[in-house]
């Protein structure tokens, strides 16, 4: 107990002003997707900030503390709605980091960290990360553009990786020969990711890339915010929107809806490019909440790995917002897509790249 208290005192590193911005008005109660499912005050943003403050004042970091902090998907809707301008996801992430650095973490966190550090991917896969690429001999050693594939598309959705690369290759885009996880899942769950960052960064530099393009919202956020600002980061929807006229798309007689990934939308302000691409192909009908107000899929912040039931319940509630009669739910993040599919979506959930590929193929 005493030891835990001493460790917790070191928490004071988190900027006290960032915490004091919270006036406990409770606005976040009305939007926190984890709280909506779990109901306890410790499972909403206001409660989490109170817990972080209490840790600084000597509260022992027990398993309930970890569950409070770790059930946050870091979706950031609380930050978007906070009248006082607090940024709770940053506080939560910092608190996780501080605890993890002292060895205070759940088994899910430590197991996940070990797996990623050992295998270089979030699945502990030993297989070749570029297994989806039939012929790598044509890969260019030097290029201004690199496509950062990400763990999910590399190992779980290789067809999306293939389609994305097929679209990007014509613009001279190449791949990292030995890509590893971007580090986002580790950073979000409080661990260091410098080994992964260094490994990817070394390759990006060697290729001479000025722009890194990624089709995963989590990778995008990590490359943009957790890597040194030595290259531009573009999301696949941004790249596609920029090159719309060159894609030679055919219109499809379907209606889709679009799910804003939190780490692409709210965290990085990328709302319009995916919509531009969709509207160039077919009709778009928005979900009940969208853009800045979009509900989370429940997958992020380590919640899918650490609290699968909660994660899927949040996804099920997101699915209730799909407008009736649409043919597909489109998104730009494989984690969102996976979670929405696993939550039992009756409507097909596809990547934006799938939609683009159909529009090209139908010609």
């Amino acid at each position, binding site marked *: 107990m005493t030891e835990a208290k001493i460790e917790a005192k070191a928490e004071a590193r988190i900027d006290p002003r960032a915490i004091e*911005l919270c006036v406990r008005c*409770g606005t976040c109660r*009305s939007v926190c997707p984890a709280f909506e499912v779990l109901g306890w005050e*410790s499972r909403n943003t206001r409660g989490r900030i109170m817990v972080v403050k209490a840790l600084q004042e000597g*509260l022992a970091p027990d398993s309930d503390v970890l569950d409070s902090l770790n059930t946050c998907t870091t979706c950031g809707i609380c930050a978007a709605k906070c*009248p006082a*301008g607090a940024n709770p996801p940053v506080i939560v992430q910092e608190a996780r980091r501080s605890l993890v650095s002292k060895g205070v973490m759940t088994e899910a966190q430590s197991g996940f960290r070990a797996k990623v550090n050992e295998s270089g991917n979030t699945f502990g896969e030993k297989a070749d990360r570029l297994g989806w690429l039939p012929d790598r001999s044509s890969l260019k050693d030097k290029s201004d553009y690199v496509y950062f594939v990400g763990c999910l598309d590399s190992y779980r959705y290789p067809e999306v990786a293939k389609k994305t690369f097929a679209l990007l290759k014509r613009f001279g885009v190449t791949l990292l020969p030995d890509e590893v996880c971007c580090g986002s899942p580790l950073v979000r769950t409080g661990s260091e990711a410098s080994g992964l960052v260094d490994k990817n960064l070394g390759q990006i530099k060697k290729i001479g890339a000025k722009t890194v393009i990624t089709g995963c919202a989590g990778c995008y956020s990590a490359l943009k915010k957790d890597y040194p600002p030595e290259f531009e980061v573009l999301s696949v929807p941004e790249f596609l929107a920029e090159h719309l006229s060159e894609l030679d798309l055919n219109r499809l007689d379907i209606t889709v809806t679009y799910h804003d990934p939190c780490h692409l939308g709210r965290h990085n302000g990328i709302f319009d490019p995916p919509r531009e691409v969709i509207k160039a192909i077919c009709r778009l009908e928005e979900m009940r909440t969208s853009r800045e107000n979009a509900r989370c899929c429940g997958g992020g912040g380590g919640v899918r790995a650490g609290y699968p039931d909660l994660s899927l319940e949040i996804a099920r509630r997101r699915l209730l917002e799909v407008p009736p009669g649409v043919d597909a739910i489109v998104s730009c993040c494989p984690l969102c897509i996976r979670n929405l599919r696993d939550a039992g979506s009756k409507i097909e959930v596809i990547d934006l790249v799938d939609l683009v590929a159909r529009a090209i193929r139908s010609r």
Partner: protein
Amino acid sequence: MDLIDQLRDVVGDRVSAAPSERVCYSSDASQIKGMPDYVVRPISTEEVSKVVTLAAELGVPVTARGAGTGLAGGAVPVKGGIVLDMSGMNRILELDLENLQVIVEPGVVQARLNEVLKPHGFFFPPDPGSSNICTIGGLIANNGSGMRCVKYGTTKSYVLDLEVVLADGRVVRTGSRMLKSAAGYDLTRLFIGSEGTLGIITKAGLRVAPLPKARRLVIASFDDAETAGRAVAKTFASGIVPSACEILDRTTIAVLLRCDSNLVLPEGDVILFEVDGTESSTKESAEEIVQVCSPFATNVVSVSGEKEMEEIWEARRLVGAAVSRIDPKKSRIYVGEDVGVPIKKIPVLIREIGEISERFDLPAMKYGHIGDGNLHVALFIDVLNEDEWARLEAAADAIHRAAIRLGGTVSSEHGVGAARAGYMKMQWGEGTLSVMRAIKRVLDPQGIINPGKLGLDDGPSSGGEG
């Protein structure tokens, strides 16, 4: 058997004694703190009754809590014991619109009730700034109100019936589905505004009102807040009843524009008058207000675009917490924030608050429901500066005393809780307070239901008595 095990027998895993959970229920949005020993999240009247019965047997305090948005510590368990988080009892049980009423559980969020009512053409008028968050139970327990209460009245005008768990676990009803009744004491009103000190509300029958067909907003700006106050008094004296009448002083306007630079708001000290009714009646009333205010105002405009109006109201609802937007080192501390005076005295109150702000060298943002004499004073400080804390408390005390001296109240809608308990005797006098204490003793002889609130505890009152 330990109390926690007995509680588990009643509510299963919806009880917690985890230190981190207790921390989260140890305060609301006020500065009052009190650590509960247990947090219980009941989902039925039966569970509440069983928990209270257990607590009564053991003499353990029980404090009900809605969304914890209170600004006076009303839901803070200052004597420990059990916190009943009522937000899980959140079903809308019946829309009985032919009888102009709805039956709800106390954990229903105000805005959700209105979302459900809207397609039927009705609404539940009391609309506090926290309407997206706060629960009906909390609104009733505090007689909460909001921007439109100047026309529609406060929560007490809309409660027809309550189901209440008393301090010994008995369940009683206080009213009926009648829109009026002249049979016996009005126990419904007794529980409204009692801040959970007399029993736990587990169900409520609420009267609803038809939604107006049209709304219109008049935005008038003035050289100073006192002149704005005079314009308001003059408007009311002219026989106009706006559906909202809000003051936003120049600091508040600056904060609002910092939050959203697209808002259509003039500079200066501003009054927002809203009128509702039909297209023609609102047009006529708005024109009248423009006429009355013009001699005082530097600028008066009328707005009728629904989106434009909603954006202004939405921003207004959240402005209380937003002062950090103009200085991130300053935080809003909710003290002295809810005073009210007769509307004729508003200009005097505004002047006195200006003097208090200067005397204690603390910036004060003034906004609120000036139409019913209720002024929200937002004092903001650097919370890491102890000297500012001391000045803050002294300024809040001075504001409360000024309101009482002007024949007003220390709380118009946020409640007394623990934060303002020390002013009850000053505001009411010993005679009235002794009646309140006698009622409390009859209904809660052990003093276990939300103890430490409203200045009801026997013995010498603390602080603020002068």
